[in-house]
């Protein structure tokens, strides 16, 4: 069996402030195969962004990886020196962020910023890098790329900026692209365009993508597999079809229910999940979702559930463990 491109093993991440330790990620493991588009879904505070920042080891402030391994192309990234990580960032692993309006440096031209990334990782002269940057701008669908090369970020619209950012991220043909809420800050119509662009580019370059979002609609259109996170843990994992048509975990079910749907009469009913996300600065006993779970049992509050596996899917839930005593014993 081929080795996965990226493999997280029991990752634990905490932030430390004067109150104490905030355990943001409490034991996350998953694999990403080459060529896959993996979606990570969850509410804010679920740990999804921290997961991606941990992979490229850019945790801000007091964040620390307290446990686990991040195996990329066979090597543990956590063992690498900062110098080695700088060579990987932007080159083997690239990342794009949520807000295109603030992701570009306002006092440098867009083209310059892209060329800089290219020249940083590849031994190209100024003009060669410029040509490559212009090519990338063209690739992401920006008209008149030679002129736009010399424009400043404020001369681009939001959607254009995000395209330019994608160009920058893909300029060195990274094997992994992490997209953290890439469309959240964009208009709905532009969202669709950007997602389409990402998928097209993926087909061309065969980049593997981790797409982080809170929007299940985005996931439905782009991902092959999905991970659902809550309270710093993975609640459920499976293919897109599995998750949407046959969700196993109560949280996943709740998320799907809270999507705006048109019922037969044309009314839209929003059924949000009752309650609030857990306080991560405190130890959580049992399943993190138990306070909000409509099917909660006693054992849920006391013991963290084991993963229930089935055909390449898994979900962390006592409900599933009940009927099958042969699993995980």
């Amino acid at each position, binding site marked *: 069996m081929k080795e996965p491109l990226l493999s997280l093993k029991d990752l634990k991440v905490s932030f430390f402030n004067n109150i104490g330790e905030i355990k943001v990620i409490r034991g996350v493991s998953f694999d990403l195969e080459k060529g896959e588009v993996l979606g990570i879904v969850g509410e804010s505070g679920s740990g999804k962004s921290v997961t991606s920042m941990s992979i490229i080891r850019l945790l*801000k402030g007091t964040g620390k990886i307290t446990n686990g391994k991040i195996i990329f192309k066979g090597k543990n990234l956590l063992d690498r020196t900062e110098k080695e990580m700088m060579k990987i960032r*932007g080159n083997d692993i690239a990342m794009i962020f949520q807000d295109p309006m603030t992701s570009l440096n306002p006092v440098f031209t867009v083209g310059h910023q892209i060329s800089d990334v290219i020249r940083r990782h590849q031994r190209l002269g100024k003009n060669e890098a410029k040509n490559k940057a212009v090519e990338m701008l063209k690739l992401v669908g920006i008209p008149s790329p030679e002129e736009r090369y010399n424009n400043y970020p404020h001369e681009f619209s939001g959607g254009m900026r995000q395209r330019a950012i994608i160009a920058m991220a893909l300029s060195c043909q990274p094997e992994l692209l992490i997209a953290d809420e890439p469309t959240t800050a964009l208009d709905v119509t532009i969202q669709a365009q950007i997602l389409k662009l990402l998928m097209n580019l993926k087909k061309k370059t065969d980049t593997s993508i981790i797409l982080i979002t809170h929007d299940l609609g985005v996931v439905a259109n782009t991902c092959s597999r999905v991970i659902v996170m809550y309270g710093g843990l993975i609640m459920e994992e499976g293919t897109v079809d599995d998750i949407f048509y046959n969700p196993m975990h109560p949280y996943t079910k709740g998320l799907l229910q809270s999507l705006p749907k048109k019922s037969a009469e044309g009314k839209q009913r929003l059924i949000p999940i009752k309650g609030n996300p857990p306080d991560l600065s405190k130890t959580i006993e049992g399943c993190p979702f138990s306070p909000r779970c409509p099917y909660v049992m006693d054992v849920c509050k006391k013991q963290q559930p084991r993963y229930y596996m089935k055909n390449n899917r898994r979900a962390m839930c006592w409900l599933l463990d009940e009927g099958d005593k042969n699993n995980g014993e």
Partner: protein
Amino acid sequence: MVILGGIFVVRMITKRIIQSIPMMIAISIVSFLLIKLAPGDPVQAYITPEMGPVQIENIRESMGLNKPIHIQYLIWLKSVLKGDLGYSLVNHRPVAMQIIERLPATLGLMGTSLVISMILGIIIGLISAANQNKIFDNIAAFISYIGISIPSFWFAMMLIYLLSLKLKLLPSIGMRTIGVHTTWDLIKHGIMPTIVLSLQNIASITRYIRSSTISQLKEDYVTVEYASGASRREVLYKYVLKNSILPVITILGMSLPSLVSGAFITESIFGWPGMGQLGIKAIFGYDYPLIMAITMFSSLILIIGNLLSDILYGIADPRIKELK
């Protein structure tokens, strides 16, 4: 493309210059009033001892001193624009000439001080921001506090005591040693005045750059740059620098008032033969024409300095390019 850019710059410069004209007019009115309010016979400003009473009366006529005040102002303005600022009441030499003689010394001191303040302020500010709350930052912050709190004349006295009296390293008075014309001599004389004049600005520029850089470092684009493999040094000194420096151009404008005010005290203590020393002497000598002229000149320096910094800012910040 370049031509368009050039036209734009010219337009902006012209606009800014036009905007500062009302201020210059206001300053001229204030200066004029200053002289009007001074005690004594106003014609004294325009005569020399050799002139006879008839000549004096003629001058009184031509300066419109018997006419209503707004006409006097216009006549005065006209002669000022022609370069005639009257005669010093003390030594009866033309005021304009005295000022021009001393202008280079003052501008030299101010200019050097400004350049040093900006360079040191930017460097120390950047390094402080890069090492927030570590030793360098704390020491720099402490020295900054002292820099804005210390009375400049006392700092000058301490420096003179240490470097001139005790260690005999530097001369304490004047711009040159009599009979010596070397640059090195000039520099030796200028070191202490420059340090004293620069201290406050170095302190305030450092604090400003530090806080500007710290807030830039929190911006999203910095994260993006790190995520594309940039090193800490690259991020700080290439990418953030340009953003942090933008307010510096405004700081340039903000530093000017303390440079101009500071020049009066610094030049007096060190006997530096500039406009500032002349101003202080003029006050003690009740030399009103000179006082008025120096007020006007120092205001002009301030206004022109601000104008320049406005223009520089317009060129530097791509976001301000108001095309069309």
